[in-house]
């Protein structure tokens, strides 16, 4: 298998896209550290699923917006698994509102998790990757970070930030054999999108060229590809997985 012998951390992996990504990487042979912020039971369930399928995994609690938590997450992974080859920055939140109604706290919270969290996790794993002259980072951005979206100024700004961060770190670390890419999902069915009213959901589906909303597995497959040696010559890219929404 392509990811045999490798160790991956997936942030926010108790549910949604993170869960699908964790399962996909494990299916590819990676040992997966399933990070979660609060939902221990769900994270353990993901680990059980990985193990039931013959893979290896462990759950580690950490809030990615806190430097102390992130350092502990990475250290726990390194101590238990010996190294970290793959980091998938997936943890994210949305606090949607029109700019005039957006609270400062909603801005800060979204930037803290969705952008600062990516910075903290990247910095924490980079040291070990530099030493080993190898490593792969995949950041989950969003098509909204490219196109913008009414009602998501904070979220879109954070996701655009993730794309800029991805390119900058890709340039910095490329000379040491470390690849950094982003995946920009379009509209994918998860708890995050389930809160939208049905008419909005149907409306969105109609605007998608491929005629359907995405499933977590669509994103997980793209992440697994970018994380694998098959993508050895790809870095600094943002791959839209969106049924053609953004083009």
């Amino acid at each position, binding site marked *: 298998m392509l990811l045999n012998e490798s160790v991956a951390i997936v942030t926010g992996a108790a549910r949604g896209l993170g869960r699908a990504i964790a399962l996909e990487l494990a299916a590819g042979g990676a040992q997966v550290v399933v990070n979660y912020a609060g939902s221990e039971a769900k994270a353990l369930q993901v680990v059980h699923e990985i193990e039931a399928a013959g893979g290896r995994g462990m759950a580690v609690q950490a809030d990615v917006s806190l430097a102390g938590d992130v350092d502990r997450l990475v250290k726990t992974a390194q101590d238990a698994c010996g190294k970290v080859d793959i980091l998938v920055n997936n943890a994210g939140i949305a606090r949607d509102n029109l700019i005039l109604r957006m609270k400062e706290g909603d801005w800060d919270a979204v930037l803290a998790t969705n952008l600062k969290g990516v910075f903290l996790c990247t910095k924490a794993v980079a*040291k070990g990757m*530099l*030493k080993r002259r190898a490593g792969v980072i995949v950041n989950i951005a969003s098509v909204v970070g490219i196109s913008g979206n009414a009602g998501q100024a904070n979220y879109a700004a954070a996701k655009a930030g993730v794309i800029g961060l991805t390119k900058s770190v890709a340039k*910095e670390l490329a*000379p*040491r054999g470390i690849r950094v890419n982003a995946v920009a999902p379009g509209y994918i069915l998860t708890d995050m999108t389930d809160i939208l009213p049905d008419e909005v959901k149907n409306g969105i589906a109609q605007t998608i060229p491929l005629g359907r909303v995405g499933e977590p597995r669509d994103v997980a497959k793209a992440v697994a590809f970018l994380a694998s040696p098959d993508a050895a010559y790809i870095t600094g890219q943002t791959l839209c997985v969106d049924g053609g929404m953004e083009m």
Partner: protein
Amino acid sequence: MGVFEKVKSIVVDQLGVDEDDVTLETSFEELNADSLDIVELIMALEEEFDLDIPDEEAEKIRTVGDAVKYIKENQ
């Protein structure tokens, strides 16, 4: 091995330079180290000497002698 010899061997190792080119006066720049090389070098020194060199201090370490001096003072 003295501090200088240890630092020298790390510099030789990290930057892939000739031992004869490394003296106390040699700057990392002269050895063609880029900024990332220097960050890695500092990381290697921290590990070897079991130190935690703060970023503000690390920025001041420009020559082999600077590193040796810092290590001697902080060990």
